[in-house]
């Protein structure tokens, strides 16, 4: 860093950090670490390949990728809605996750409170924890069922 930059950094109002070069440098370090993680993971566990696709042979444990498992498992669990009618399980099984995602999409319009600090929004923190726990539980359940 040259002197001009040092002066720049020192002359910033308190509480503000120059994006260049301070934030950018930390960001680049983070990228470098992630690149190391990528190559290490690839060396330890290279991408796999099963037998060639055979449309006539359904394997035993068919599952979607891990990031769709929670929705997939919810669709199965939705069988409990069968008391609402024969079509209810399939219907609610996609409608409920769909509606929750739509709510998440419009979150800034639903939560209009002006406070940002997490400690002043305990209900939001609680909601985050509950949603996370449910999604993780469904994912694990989906993996082992």
């Amino acid at each position, binding site marked *: 860093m040259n002197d001009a930059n040092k002066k720049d950094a020192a002359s910033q109002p308190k509480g503000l950090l120059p*994006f260049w070069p301070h934030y950018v440098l930390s960001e680049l370090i983070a990228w470098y670490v992630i690149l190391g993680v990528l190559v290490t993971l690839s060396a330890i566990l290279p991408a796999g390949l*099963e037998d060639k696709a055979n449309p006539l042979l359904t394997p035993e444990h068919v599952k979607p990728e891990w990031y769709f498992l929670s929705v997939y498992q919810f669709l199965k669990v939705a069988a409990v809605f069968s008391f609402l009618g024969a079509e209810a399980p399939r219907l609610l099984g996609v409608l409920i996750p769909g509606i929750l995602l739509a709510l998440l999409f419009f979150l800034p319009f639903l939560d209009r*409170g002006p*406070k940002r600090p997490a400690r002043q929004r305990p209900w939001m923190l609680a909601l*985050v924890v509950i949603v996370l726990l449910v999604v993780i539980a469904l994912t694990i359940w989906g993996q082992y069922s």
Partner: protein
Amino acid sequence: MQAVRFNPALWFNAGLDWLDERVGIRELVATLLHVVIPRSAHTYYLGGITLFLFGSQAVTGILLSLYYQPTPESAYNSILYIMNELNFGWLIRSVHAWGANLMIIFCILHLLRVVIQGAYKAPREITWMAGMGLLFVTLGFGFTGYLLPWDQRAYWATTVGTEIAAAVPLIGVNIRDFMRGGADVSALTLSRFLGVHMLILPAALIGLLLVHLFIIHQQGLADPHATEEK
């Protein structure tokens, strides 16, 4: 006259001057870089890491596309060739596969930090919605990319994945068949998944990303301790 010596800094400056006279490059770079961010804004670099992973996916993906053959007859064998014979092919494909998973993880972590710090609140609604679009696109990349190796796992994961869409009321079966290009996962499915994976989703991601980053640049990062905005 001064001797011409190799001086990268000088050359670089001369190049900048040349561009500056024509397109005002210095002012542009200054506008992009000389911004300040609140010291209390802890991004944990999650958005930037997601961006880096996208860059890595673009590079490794383009390399894979040079050897990948998108038909049911040859897709599987082209992957075998990449993994077993092509120099460093296994590494490029493995980095692409791990990068896909990490990109989804970091995208979700980034979303969580935005939620926890309340950075989605007004006036950042558009940044948030563009972000949700980016999340959907990222998941779409994973979904369409998974089919391309055309192995048993790919084929059947796509079969059950597209079957989920069939549960949508009224038009569910139509959506499923539209995704598959027919009643079953077939050569047509492979073609359209490849087109979506290599053309549509990259274009969508770049477009949404420009909106996302432009607004972040104009507004600056949210200060977690300030309740009111300018």
